[in-house]
Every structure is written in structure tokens, then in C-alpha cells.
């Protein structure tokens, strides 16, 4: 069974400093992994995805993530935080098989990112 653990429920950084949001996954199959962002009172937006191609994945707004199979990790990073990055971030794993072609996602609990001026 697939599962995701986000290691920090809340991360606080200063504007202009690096961001690291940690995610470990468990999967019986070669996984597809995603990071989604949710700004306050908004829907979810896809930041980036890993689907067994390059292990370093670049996303929108300067975010990137590295798939490390040996560590079962998919941490999200950004070199320099901006105030607009304040949001909730979800690490997501796609189940290794598709039922009737549907894609089943398993979400982590979320990490709230706060940016200090």
C-alpha cells in the first residue's frame, strides 16, 4: 500500500532564505509523486511531478524536488523564499496501479509554510 509522511507540520523561514519541506513515501510499486500547494481559502495547484523520468524535478515558482529511491524521499526545495510562498504544501503519491484507468492519489497531512519578513 502507498503512504506519504510529511515530516514537518509547520515550517517557518525568513524571506530570502532557502526552503526545505520534507516528504517520505512508501510504495510497493514504482511511484508517481507530486507536490501540490494550497493558498489560504483556495483550491490546490500542482507544483511539480515525478513520473520515473529525471530524478530532479523542476516546478513552478522556482520550486524543485529530488526523488531519492534509496531514501524513499521526495523533498521540496526552493533557494530563496518569497512572501507569496506562504501556503500549505501537500506531498502526494499515486497508487501504483489504476483501477478502471482511474488514478488514486494518497495525500500527506500537509506542511504549513510561513514566511517571515
Amino acid at each position, binding site marked *: 500500500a502507498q503512504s506519504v509522511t510529511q515530516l514537518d*507540520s509547520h515550517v517557518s523561514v525568513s524571506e530570502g532564505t532557502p526552503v526545505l519541506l520534507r516528504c517520505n513515501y512508501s510504495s510497493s510499486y514504482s511511484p*508517481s509523486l*507530486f507536490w*501540490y500547494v494550497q493558498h489560504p481559502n*483556495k*483550491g*490546490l*495547484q*500542482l507544483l511539480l*511531478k515525478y*513520473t520515473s523520468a529525471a530524478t530532479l524535478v523542476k516546478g513552478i515558482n522556482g520550486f524543485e524536488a529530488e526523488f531519492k529511491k534509496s531514501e524513499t524521499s521526495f523533498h521540496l526545495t526552493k533557494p530563496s523564499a518569497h512572501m507569496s510562498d506562504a501556503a500549505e504544501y*501537500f506531498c502526494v503519491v*499515486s497508487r501504483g496501479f489504476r*483501477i*478502471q*484507468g*482511474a*488514478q*488514486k*492519489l494518497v*495525500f*500527506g*497531512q*500537509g506542511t504549513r509554510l510561513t514566511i517571515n519578513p
Partner: protein
Amino acid sequence: DAGITQSPRHKVTETGTPVTLRCHQTENHRYMYWYRQDPGHGLRLIHYSYGVKDTDKGEVSDGYSVSRSKTEDFLLTLESATSSQTSVYFCAISQGHEQYFGPGTRLTVT
């Protein structure tokens, strides 16, 4: 935004009443999903659809039913709302490996 709208966006209802939430998409996507979002749980799948009249249960389906009579609409019904169903409900479609989400419906059951 993959052309997904949800209605209503906010609803307050009383315990024991039926409630129907609507998800509408304009891009002819085959797969549609309903999730609920609760603090500390991320999003959890309620039901999904893989075609007109084809639906299946997700991990938290008790107390919910769905219907899809046409491609563009996926309805979620709370047959008899309970306070534990107070939540934010998101509809999604999948396109390849990716899922795209609607703006959400905030439901409060009093």
C-alpha cells in the same frame, strides 16, 4: 484550472437533511473525483467516476453517494448530513498523471 466549477461554494445545513454538491467540467474529461479535506488529514478520496454511470468507492465513502448521468457533471450526495461531514469538499479531474482540482465547497452541518 481545467474548467472545473463547484456549486454551491458555501453551504450551511442541519443534521439529518440531504445535501447535494455539484461538480461541473467543460473539457470532456473521463475521470472525476470527490475528496474531502480536514485538518491533519490532507485530502481523502470519497468516490470517483471512470465514465458516465460508472462510479466506485474511495477510502471514506460511508454516508455519501454519487451520480454521473452525463460526462460534465459529477454529483456528491450526503444522504443524511451529520456534523462529522462538516468539511471542505473538492472535485478533481485527471489528465494523464496529473489531477486538477476545483475551487472547493465549504459545508457546515449544524
